[in-house]
């Protein structure tokens, strides 16, 4: 008789299940709130409406991620300098504020030179060779210590090492030294004749150092 006077009680498992269900309800509710608040946000006008694709082949302008310019290897038809133009070597030499050294190596020489680019505003010059080697020149700041700067840059990047050719310090970066695709090709950097010289190519670093050595002589 007494059992009939007791209020009905759920078994333990059912009470636990109910608690879990209520907890889950709260969790899901908060998730929905976050989603609404996060995506709407009040500062993001225009969440709906027609989309207008905009793409003029900027080539990852400003990007530093996978589509960033230095993570892409320019094809044979791609410009070497944004905003630049192709000119004869002697014209580039006349316009540049530094001597444009010509390498003499099987990987890069005057006989394998295919294009000379100049960007008049930045003063950069680039050489393209039939072997796929690319050499970029830029005026080195007056009074700046190349060894100190290259060591600092290598330290900041945490990749590559400092070598030397013909008495010039060289920052050597093997392909993928900073992770898969970074850089996408090996490159070496040195300072010669008042210009920073950056040599890229699908070649072992030994080959690029040989090109650098022929420039630095």
């Amino acid at each position, binding site marked *: 008789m007494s059992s009939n006077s007791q209020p009905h009680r759920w078994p333990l498992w059912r009470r636990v299940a109910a*608690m879990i269900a209520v907890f889950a309800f709260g969790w899901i509710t*908060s998730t929905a709130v976050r989603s609404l608040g996060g995506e709407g946000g009040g*500062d993001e006008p225009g969440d709906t409406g027609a989309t207008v694709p905009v793409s003029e082949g*900027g080539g990852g302008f400003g990007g*530093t991620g996978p589509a960033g310019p230095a993570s892409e290897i320019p094809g044979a038809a791609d410009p*070497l300098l944004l905003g630049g133009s192709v000119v004869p070597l002697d014209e580039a030499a006349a316009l540049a504020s530094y001597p444009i050294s010509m390498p003499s190596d099987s990987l890069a020489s005057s006989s394998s030179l295919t294009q000379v680019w100049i960007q008049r505003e930045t003063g950069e010059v680039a050489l393209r060779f039939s072997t796929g080697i690319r050499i970029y020149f830029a005026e080195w700041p007056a009074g700046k210590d190349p060894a100190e700067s290259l060591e600092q840059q290598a330290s900041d990047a945490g990749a590559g090492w400092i070598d030397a050719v013909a008495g010039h310090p060289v920052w050597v970066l093997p392909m993928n030294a900073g992770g898969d695709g970074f850089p996408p090709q090996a490159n070496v950097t040195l300072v010669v004749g008042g210009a920073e010289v950056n040599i890229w190519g699908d070649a072992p670093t030994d080959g690029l150092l040989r090109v650098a050595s022929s420039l630095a002589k």
Partner: protein
Amino acid sequence: MRWVVRLCVLSLVAMAGFVGGLTSGWPRAAAVDCGNFREQYFNPGTTWRGVKVSSPGMRVSDTVVDCSRISWVFVRNAAGTKIVNLGWYETEIGEFGCNPTAGKPKVLRIKQVNGIGTCDHNTHEYGTNETPTNDDFSIQDDNQDGVWEYRRNGVLVGSYDLGAFTNGILGAGSARYGASGDSMYGNFDGLKRMGSAGNWDGWNSNTGNGDDPEYISCVHSNTWGEVKLGSCP
């Protein structure tokens, strides 16, 4: 009375679930195909010693991200081998050599040299009450020594040596991963460039561009660009 107690217990349990959901990690990144890196940007067309957005500045937002979203100003060389960027970002996946953020936007200070990106991990993380807001961001090499100084709201937040890189092509823009569904909204009002005398002047031209399939770059004026969905006014 017993039902009141039960109701209170159930409310507390539901509240615990609610709070748990709010404070937990957002387990979505792994299920999302982040797709290709996409960006929309503005540039003034010529080369300068620095870039700045101020008064009112760059919009900093706080949204839930599946992959990444970024707004920044930047300067790059013509070769594309050297870039300096400053702005803010949120990322679930980590990138640019930067660690994933913890649910709030963080100042993004990076540079790229010869294909290697370097991220400053010790940047400011925005708090709950700091967004949305407009912050000033600038990057400059006023003394032409190849060392670029980064400033947020006028305060120096760091510098990087980039060798011979002393002036370049400026820009401001937003980026994300194309298929992620993350917002790419960006607002850059008060765009300036540093001239050869070390003076800041407003951009004297402005072009919008980019490769995102949905967002567009709206040029409101030479000194104001907005990355948004929809159409430009």
